[in-house]
């Protein structure tokens, strides 16, 4: 058997040119899952039989000379908050356990149309609420680089799946950093596209004004390839930007000569010293590659955490009202509907989901709305205006992705505020609706990977991927 390439683009090319079969590829990845999944728990469900059947169908198409998609035969893992028709979708919550959606998320059908093969549904913090994947009702995912540590979250399963070689690429969702932060902690690439660039149809809603679907990959080029495949207008999402998917793969190798890279001089404190050291090395590497470093300030950035943890729970408290035991998922029977709702939701939701629902309900309740939710929306505006001023001077901004490297299990799970602080550098992007990506760049404490975050203005994916590509090239020389 020929060697199986490790990238999505390599696999697609090798299959299309008949060097290997889709079946050989999928069998190789499924073997890797069999070997390590017990230790990692990246998946809520592995769809091995369907994946093999899909691979055989692609091989039959190739043998018959029928046209195949650009991602034909590429294995992909899908976060378990994206609806898959007839395949259990749980959001890692007891309240949805066993639910088989009657439709596919748009991103899922687009990937299938492109020929990608789903290998399974990945674990997450329940309803994407968390930064360590410890909030899953079905048990935590372990970091493949050190199984005593968390993979980050909420898309910890998708990050771990790519880091463990269970799939070359995966999909996650990012509401406050849930793609970028686990990507950083697992040493892979993670992208949150511009709000509206990728359809949210079929993504189980957490905070609708912040949620966005995006890829994990081992290379920046693969991340660009998958972003291209899932982006573009979708009539099923009213916030979808009405324009076709941009071409992004070519940007990755364009270099950064002449680009202006923003360095935030008033970056909120709290990052580990090794993380700051890697950030400084990243600036030096980009400067050496021909970019100019420009000092900027984002004075409202330190308030982003408060704005986010009021806005996101407020939206969640409304979105999660649908889990009421009527149309899908769990029901705890009771004498009347009101008692049924209360008992069902108490039994079905975990503690973090309950905390955020209560926080959001409080922030929206009469007498507190102006003091909390109303104020948070104004702070959101200040943050967006900060970015607007900054992007008049620079093309992209560089920050750490996470202030800390992957931490041991149990470190923060009972201290919500400590957990929330993991998102301090990723949250502002979501509030503004901008794109951002995390690129692995050396290691920090305990030899765990550090991620550098590239932030860009709305629809600035092309410059973001240029800088991502340059960082990837330079990362070989990072500590």
């Amino acid at each position, binding site marked *: 058997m020929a060697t199986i390439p490790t990238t999505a683009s390599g696999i697609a090319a090798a299959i299309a040119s008949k060097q290997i079969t889709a079946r050989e590829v999928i069998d190789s990845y499924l073997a890797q899952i069999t070997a390590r999944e017990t230790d990692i728990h990246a998946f809520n469900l592995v769809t091995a039989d369907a994946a093999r059947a899909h691979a055989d169908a692609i091989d039959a198409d190739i043998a018959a000379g029928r046209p195949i998609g650009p991602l034909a035969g590429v294995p992909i893992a899908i976060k378990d908050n994206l609806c898959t028709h007839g395949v259990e979708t749980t959001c890692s919550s007891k309240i949805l356990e066993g*639910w088989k*959606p*009657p439709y596919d998320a748009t991103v899922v059908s687009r990937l299938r149309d492109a020929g990608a093969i789903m290998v399974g549904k990945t674990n997450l913090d329940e309803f994407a609420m968390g930064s360590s994947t410890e909030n899953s009702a079905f048990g935590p995912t372990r970091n493949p680089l050190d199984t005593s540590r968390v993979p980050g979250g909420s898309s910890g399963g998708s990050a771990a799946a790519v880091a463990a070689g269970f799939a070359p690429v995966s999909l996650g969702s990012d509401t406050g950093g849930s793609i970028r932060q686990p990507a950083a902690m697992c040493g892979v690439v993670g992208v949150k596209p511009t*709000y509206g660039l990728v359809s949210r149809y079929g993504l189980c809603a957490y905070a609708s*004004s912040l949620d966005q679907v995006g890829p994990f990959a081992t290379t920046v080029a693969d991340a660009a390839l998958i972003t291209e495949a899932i982006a573009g207008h979708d*009539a099923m999402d*009213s*916030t979808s*930007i009405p324009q076709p998917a941009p071409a992004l793969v070519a940007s990755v190798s364009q270099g950064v000569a002449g680009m202006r890279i923003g360095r935030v001089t008033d970056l909120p404190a709290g990052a580990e010293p090794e993380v700051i050291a890697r950030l400084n090395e990243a600036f030096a590497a980009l400067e050496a590659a021909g970019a100019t470093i420009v000092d900027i300030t984002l004075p*409202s950035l*330190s*308030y982003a*955490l*408060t*704005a986010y*943890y*009021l806005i996101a729970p407020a939206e969640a408290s409304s979105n999660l*009202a649908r889990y*009421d035991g*009527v*149309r*899908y998922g769990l029901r705890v029977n009771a*004498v*009347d*509907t009101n*008692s*049924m*709702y*209360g*008992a069902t*939701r*108490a039994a079905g*939701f975990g503690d973090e989901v*309950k*905390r955020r*629902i*209560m*926080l959001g*309900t*409080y922030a929206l*309740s009469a*007498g507190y709305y102006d*003091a*909390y939710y*109303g*104020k*948070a*929306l*104004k*702070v*959101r*505006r*200040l943050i967006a205006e900060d970015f607007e001023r900054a992007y008049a001077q620079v093309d992209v901004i560089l920050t750490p992705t996470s202030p800390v490297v992957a931490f041991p299990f149990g470190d923060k799970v009972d201290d*919500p*505020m400590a957990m*929330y602080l993991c998102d301090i550098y990723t949250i502002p992007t979501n509030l*503004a*609706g*901008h794109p951002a990506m995390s690129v692995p760049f050396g290691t920090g404490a305990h030899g765990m990977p550090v991620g550098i975050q590239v932030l860009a203005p*709305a629809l600035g994916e092309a410059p973001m991927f240029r800088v991502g590509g340059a960082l990837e090239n330079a990362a070989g020389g990072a500590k």
Partner: protein
Amino acid sequence: MSPSGTPISAADVAKVARLARLDIDEANVVHFTEQLAKVMGHFSDIDALDLSGVGPMTQPFPLVNVLREDVEQPCLDTDEVLNAAPSSDQRRFRVPPIIGLDD
């Protein structure tokens, strides 16, 4: 302290849980009150900001009403949808009585 000046109380948490249709026992109300008070304590950082004249931002980009042509389109399969429900009857979702039997 919260922006409104008083920390969240156990009574607040019990009320909010009721509003959110979450049955939470007394011990857990105390537990959640402690955690939420700590989180909300952090929120007082925005009290220092002058927000007069700042408009609220509810969405990243302005929302526009999206309408399609009023033409019949395929929709979800009714049987498939009802099969996923905890209980259904005569092609409808079946629920317990709206008004409690003990009221």
